[in-house]
């Protein structure tokens, strides 16, 4: 299992499609920085292929005032959980 990390919003960048294209069926995706916008209910559909494997970084949601606005399908983790995700994954792949 690999951890993919995405820091761009699907509202302006199409790089999320490249991330998804290289993901195996067990790989996880963590949204960080501007990428956390993808956790909003109107944008999360871009990640529907990842049901149950989509994460978002709490600190970046909080800083943007989006902490209470995430779709229920997204698992929110703090930076400690971010490190934990990297421990559990064989390696990480970053998309920006």
């Amino acid at each position, binding site marked *: 299992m690999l951890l993919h990390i995405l820091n761009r*919003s699907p*509202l*302006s960048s199409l790089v999320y499609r490249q991330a998804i294209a290289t993901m195996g069926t067990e790989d996880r995706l963590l949204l960080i*920085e*501007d990428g956390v916008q993808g956790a909003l209910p109107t944008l999360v559909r871009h990640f529907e292929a990842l049901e149950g494997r989509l994460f978002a970084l709490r600190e*970046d949601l909080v*800083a*943007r*005032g*989006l902490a209470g606005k995430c779709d229920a399908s997204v698992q929110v983790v703090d930076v400690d959980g971010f490190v934990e995700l990297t421990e559990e994954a064989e390696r990480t792949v970053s998309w920006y």
Partner: protein
Amino acid sequence: MTDVPPYHGDLLVILRHGPHGSSLLREGLDAALVAAAFGRDVSLLFMGEGISALVRDQQVGPLGQKGTAATLQMLEMYDIDRLLVDGEGLAGLGLAPRDLMLPVEVLDSSAMAVQPKVHRLVLTF
């Protein structure tokens, strides 16, 4: 369509980036504030991710980065009161004007296409 409409202002600053992720939002706001402080008539147009700059309850970043919420609160003091928001972009974020920290004017697509024309200078951030 060929008539040039009357100017709405000196400067249109288009804000397309959200807070924290890049410095462009802050740099665009700084340019707007300075122009206003110099007596220029400034309009702000929030598009795409830039609309998220107006979401309520923003916080400092995890290292104490200030973000832009405090700067936005200063706009009124600088007499910047023409805050324009792309209606389509607002809907794309699943937001309504009541979710925003400041009163805004929501633009439909025909109003959007007029904005660069009715300002003497356009800066995009």
